């Protein structure tokens, strides 16, 4: 009961659970579901026609102003050539913004960085999370403690903890930093991971990104694993199935929808990477050569090179075409390999 209450979300009605379930079994609802749903108590509803809209009004206003209108507007922006944000004028309509963005060296750098980040971190974090979740669900003592610890990065401020990572990896005139110390121990030579060579910076960025996204993935996978009905395991054990075969043939297919969900959200999230990079390398990401596509959008919008909402819009739309394409490919691939029950 306590567990149920704390979990909050599952049925979410806490200790009234069984009571409510009983309530739901109403004879009328059961035997007359159609009638009841369609015309249930319409006399009460007759006067509600406008009231419903009144309750929705705040949400509709906010969504209209800050989600729907901007969505349309961003497309318009992206085709307005030579838009000047001060005078709010533009010269013409066309694809110049896209062409400019696609030829901008900074954008290409950002594109490359983002793709590398995606290709490295998504498989790595998903695989690692799977490994950890499987390990986690195979133990009893300390399980909750580990779970709690692993989840910790989720509730931390990306920017703040990024600073800690920067210190750990940074090489300064007076100190090589902790990570370099470790490298020394293993006989390597020190590298400045924050302001040094490209691969070193990329390594830190990937490392930090994985560190940040792990809690979510571990949590999702652990609950997916916990959701597998033990009946299957027992059945397999009776048949003398080995541990690895059991994992490959039972566990993996059973959690494949969740795994797939993580891959998709992982791709989307990694493509939108930005604040991790800022946390490590500072706001001037172009100078550090570590910009991401989202970073490029924001820089175009606001930072030193800012004031170009049209370029920003074009870049944002390019980004989301990429994300959409990748998601579609994912969905196609998944049709073959994901088992939905």
């Amino acid at each position: 009961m306590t567990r149920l209450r704390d979990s909050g979300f599952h049925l979410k009605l806490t200790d009234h659970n069984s009571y409510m379930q009983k309530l739901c079994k109403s004879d009328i609802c059961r035997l007359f579901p159609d009638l009841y749903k369609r015309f249930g108590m319409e006399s009460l509803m007759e006067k509600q026609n406008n009231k419903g809209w009144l309750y929705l009004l705040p949400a509709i206003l906010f969504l209209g102003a800050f989600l729907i209108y901007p969505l349309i507007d961003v497309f318009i922006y992206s085709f307005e050539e030579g838009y000047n944000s001060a005078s709010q004028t533009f010269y013409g309509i066309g694809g110049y913004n896209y062409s400019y963005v696609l030829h901008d060296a900074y954008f290409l750098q950002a594109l490359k960085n983002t793709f590398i980040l995606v290709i490295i971190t998504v498989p790595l974090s998903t695989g690692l999370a799977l490994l950890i979740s499987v390990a986690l669900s195979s133990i009893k003592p300390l399980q909750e403690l580990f779970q709690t610890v692993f989840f910790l990065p989720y509730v931390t401020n990306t920017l703040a903890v990024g600073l800690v990572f920067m210190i750990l990896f940074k090489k300064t005139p007076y100190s090589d930093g902790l990570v370099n110390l470790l490298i020394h121990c293993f006989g390597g030579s020190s590298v400045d991971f924050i302001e040094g060579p490209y691969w070193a910076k990329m390594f830190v960025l990937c490392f930090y990104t994985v560190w940040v996204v792990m809690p979510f993935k571990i949590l999702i996978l652990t609950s997916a694993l916990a959701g597998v009905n033990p009946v299957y395991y027992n059945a397999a054990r009776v048949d003398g199935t080995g541990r690895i075969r059991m994992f490959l043939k039972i566990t993996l297919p059973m959690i494949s929808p969740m795994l797939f969900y993580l891959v998709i959200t992982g791709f989307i999230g990694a493509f939108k990477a930005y604040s991790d990079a800022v946390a490590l390398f500072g706001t001037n990401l172009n100078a550090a050569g570590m910009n991401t596509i989202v970073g490029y959008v924001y820089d175009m919008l606001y930072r030193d090179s800012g004031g170009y909402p049209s370029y920003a819009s074009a870049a944002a739309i390019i980004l989301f075409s990429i994300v959409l394409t990748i998601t579609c490919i994912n969905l196609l691939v998944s049709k073959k390999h994901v088992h939905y029950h």
Partner: protein
Amino acid sequence: MKIVLSHLTKTFPGRGRGNRKKEDVIAVNDFNFEIPDGKLVGLLGPSGCGKSTTLHLICGLQNPTEGQIFFDEEDVTPLTPQKRGVGMVFQNYALYPHLNVEQNIRFPLENLKGSDKLSREEMHARVTEAAGLVQIDNLLDRKPSELSGGQQQRVAIARALVKLPRVLLLDEPLSNLDARLRLQTREEIRRIQQKTAITTVFVTHDQDEAMSISDLIVVMKDGLVQQIGKPQEVYDNPANLFVAKFLGTPPINLFKGRVEKGSLFLGEEAVLKLKQVPDQPVHVGIRPEGFILAENGSFTCRLSRPEVMGRDVSIVSTHPASLNPVIRSIVDAESCGHLSGDTVRFMLKPQKVFLFDQATGQRISFETD
């Protein structure tokens, strides 16, 4: 408070558009009835017969498509539930799970506005009174989830009574209770109703329940009222085949028969002499208690087995004309000492035998010598 239902009709429009539109559903069809003041009335019928809809129409949760509802002389048809002054007990009691018993019972009182507004003390007095009436005064600080089904039921009744309704409505009040509690609670409902003398309408699909506590029962089927009357009257004089089948446990035995030259034939045997009935094929219903064991009886059945029930014996037999797999007849335990062989012969009590038109199911009355 007398309740008058006049030409009450409720139609649910069919769903869908164009060709895919389904037919309208008539949940209640031209219901006319006057519920006398202070009576307990049971609306009885199988699932989907429109009894719950009728209750909701009286309550005001739904509006009738046609017809009117009067409380005494007042036309309440256009009024919302709260303005009608009705108390309703829902099938699943609909107690607010987060409020304790006292808060649940007080809830309706807190809605009162203007001149009706009650002071804290008045509310408390009313709650205590209502709780006392249903004997739950000792449970006031419990949550609904901590109560048994019977206790929840009482709380729901107290909540319905606390605002001193003109009419009390109960929707399947006993269906969520176990068998033993059901007997207890129906007595309890009867007691409370008689004590408060509030006109009460309740809905049930259980004929036992309806027969045992109602002053009047209304049998419904497919939105149409089949018969209204005192329970015993309806049982003794069913208006049609449906009512005869629906009332009584064990259920009535049905046969295909025919009337020929003033006799009722079941199979090849003439079992009853009838007067004033033209020759025709009929459906025959015989109550289980309408059989008398008689060695020279005119109705011969193939004996399956006797089932001893203590005071009575239920004789299970078969007959080719029977519409049910078996015939059940209930006879005195003493009278069946000589039961043997594979046939059994009965005489029939004419007042327990009903004839129905084969096409319409309407009762055909007859007289015997």
